[in-house]
């Protein structure tokens, strides 16, 4: 893997400027007290029920995401650059979505091949010609970033469907504030706690024209056994809106209504945490019990706003990802501020043969996969795993993309032996409304707790950290 960039210490082992306070604090702390605090934090998460359910495990299994007490710090100057890059990218994504569901100028211009769109599973023909209010498609976006050097940020993935993790960002901060108030007194950390209010405002601003002065917002969850149920309840609670399931909803007189103790009441904006295919059994997966029969018809007629819009998955598809630099340039007329990781599309014969020759150096991902499943990390894979993957690749090349293994930055965690560097990524959360794009300072830092590991997914042994953006 070689030397990678550590965000806390420079190559001489001295503290970087933005970490000075944290370094001072850590050195002055008693290790056993910190250990007790670490346990205390986990107890708080357990009692609050901040858990996620693991698919494929027993129904009742709810796990904690490990939390590390050493914060990850980003300076105000660094953040400003990242923020501008994210905003540019999110504007481009929304323009791209509007375009491909209307005139498809980008295809006509030859910048993205037609089959990339038409044959993509995430492309929803039902969305053709539909214009959501304010032309906002991705009301909530999570742009996954990794860092490789002082000013080197790469976008790893654009989560344009239903990005999760924001509740962990908020709870991590609450926990840190409770446990180490003295640390916050000594530094100037930007606040994140207004996220739920901003989310509510941002969603309400996207209400359809038929909505009243104070639009009714609701969160749609698949139910208490969903892996992110905790977050769905958390967001509904903090936005002060209803948390609904499919069986609470029905279509009446062209409106989507929820069953209240006083009868059915219309909903104007539905923040759905249910995938496209389960949204409407009449229009998509007929077996879905999670959705609302007929909601797509109401949506197309302008009776409700669905956030994120159906069909946004086409923008965070891993095959489309490789076209993102072109997409950004095409719609903004600017060079992309954030870098894309170089990507080989295995659907192209030249790329495929390169990938097959260099499997031991590459990361290979399924085009539609997520959660770190179904991928090959060449440098750490066994010969057997590589051989098996080679066959899969040859059988369905278009199903895969490949990328070089980046040398991800590290931030220390508080391990048994003291501070120990571990690889991290960052998911900033972006809210889009017709008026503006809001980016919460920081986001969710995920950390691979195993030494040397690059997999940060919570389902595979990743943890989280509080993320600080400093006021300059």
């Amino acid at each position: 893997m070689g030397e990678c960039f550590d965000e806390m210490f420079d190559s001489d082992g001295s503290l970087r400027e933005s970490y000075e306070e944290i370094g001072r604090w850590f050195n002055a702390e008693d290790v056993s007290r910190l250990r007790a605090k670490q346990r205390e934090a986990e107890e708080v998460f357990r009692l609050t029920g901040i858990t996620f359910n693991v698919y494929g495990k027993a129904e009742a299994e709810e796990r904690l995401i490990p939390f590390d007490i050493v914060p990850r710090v980003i300076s105000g100057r660094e953040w400003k650059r990242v923020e501008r890059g994210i905003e540019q990218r999110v504007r481009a994504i929304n323009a791209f979505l509007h375009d491909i569901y209307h005139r498809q100028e980008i295809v006509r211009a030859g910048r993205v091949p037609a089959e990339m769109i038409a044959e993509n599973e995430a492309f929803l023909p039902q969305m053709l010609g539909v214009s959501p209010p304010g032309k906002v498609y991705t009301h909530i976006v999570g742009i996954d970033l990794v860092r490789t050097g002082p000013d080197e940020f790469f976008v790893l993935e654009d989560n344009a469907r239903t990005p999760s993790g924001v509740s962990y960002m908020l709870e991590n901060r609450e926990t840190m504030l409770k446990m180490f108030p003295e640390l916050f007194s000594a530094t100037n950390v930007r606040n994140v706690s207004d996220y739920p209010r901003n989310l509510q405002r941002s969603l309400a601003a996207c209400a359809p024209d038929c909505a009243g002065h104070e639009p009714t917002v609701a969160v749609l969850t698949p139910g208490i056994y969903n892996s992110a149920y905790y977050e769905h309840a958390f967001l509904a609670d903090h936005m002060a809106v209803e948390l609904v399931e499919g069986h609470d909803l029905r279509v009446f007189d062209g409106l989507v209504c929820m069953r209240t103790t006083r009868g059915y009441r219309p909903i104007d904006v539905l923040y759905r945490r249910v995938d496209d295919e389960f949204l409407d059994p009449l229009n998509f997966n007929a077996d879905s019990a999670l959705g609302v029969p007929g909601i797509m018809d109401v949506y197309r007629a302008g009776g409700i706003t669905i956030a994120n819009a159906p069909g946004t998955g086409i923008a965070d598809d891993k095959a489309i990802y490789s076209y993102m630099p072109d997409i950004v340039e095409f719609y903004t007329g600017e060079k992309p501020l954030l870098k894309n990781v170089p990507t080989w599309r295995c659907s192209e014969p030249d790329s495929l043969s390169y990938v097959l020759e260099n499997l031991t150096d590459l990361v290979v991902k399924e085009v539609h996969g997520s959660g770190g499943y179904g991928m090959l990390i060449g440098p750490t894979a066994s010969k057997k795993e590589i051989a098996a993957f080679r066959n899969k690749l040859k059988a369905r090349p278009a199903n895969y993309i490949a990328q070089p293994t980046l040398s991800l930055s590290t931030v220390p965690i508080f391990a048994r032996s003291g501070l120990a560097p571990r690889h991290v990524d960052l998911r900033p959360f972006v809210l889009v409304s017709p008026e503006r794009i809001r980016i919460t300072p920081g986001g969710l830092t995920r950390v691979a707790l195993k030494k040397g590991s690059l997999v940060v997914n919570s389902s595979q042994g990743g943890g989280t950290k509080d993320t600080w953006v400093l006021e300059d």
Partner: protein
Amino acid sequence: MLGKTAGGLFWMSRYLERAENTARLLETGQRMALTRTHNSVEEWSSVLKTAGVLDGYLEKHEDITKESAVNWVLRDPDNPSSVRSVIKQARDNARLVRTALTHDVWGAVNATWMKIDEAMKRRMNERDLPAMLELIRHQSALVRGAILGTMLRNDMFDFSRIGTFVERADNTGRILDVKYYVLLPTAFSVGSSLDNIQWESILRSVGAGGGYRITHGQKTSPSEIAEFLILDQRMPRSLHFCCRKIQENLSYLKKDYGTSGPSCEASNALYAKYLDTRISDVFEFGLHEYIQEFLNDLGELSRQVEVDYRFYE
């Protein structure tokens, strides 16, 4: 508020109340079984019957022993009304209505589930029983305190309270239903020591021993015990008290919503029919018949609440 949420609050509270009542019932059963003058098999069978879990028990067990009865009532996953199952259901309902609960209430219910689930991992023996019952009682008090101390007095609170008092009235009613014969004024009942133990056990199983003594002193008589459990206005587990609370909370909902359904009327009718009366009339009517009809009407009322406030589609 969503109909589903109202239902979740109602059932969360019912299950929590049920867990506490079942624990108290076990405590009494254990106490009775330790009294040598008494037939222990009969006592455990009556505990199982009162908790409404006797049929399920007999499907799985050949005979009635203290240990199997205790484990069935407390922790058997095959028993949907075991304390463990009931706490699990309370917690699932709490999760379902998480947005309607305060941080404190959710935290208390969640911690209750985690502690009781952990404590019930192993088979329960007689030695561990007191600590287990103490834990259940302690956690119930914690949850109740969080509900009373932190929840807004709005429709959410009303549904939670209706659930609590429907369950509690049902519980007191069942105790009377199973033990009614002990309270009948028969030729044999002359206040023998056996009678005294039986009467005391009834009071104990609704946690009313102390309250009864404050009200009636040391003198125990079956009709006064029946009156205390059925008609006393101050005893928080009497049928009278529970029905008043159900009526009250339904009337708050009526005021809040500006309309009401048949359940509001039904609660007034329940009160008028069974509780605006004297204990001598109850005995004249027949204690057993009275209790059975009461439980039946209470069940109907509960179902009507579910319909009126759209708990389900």
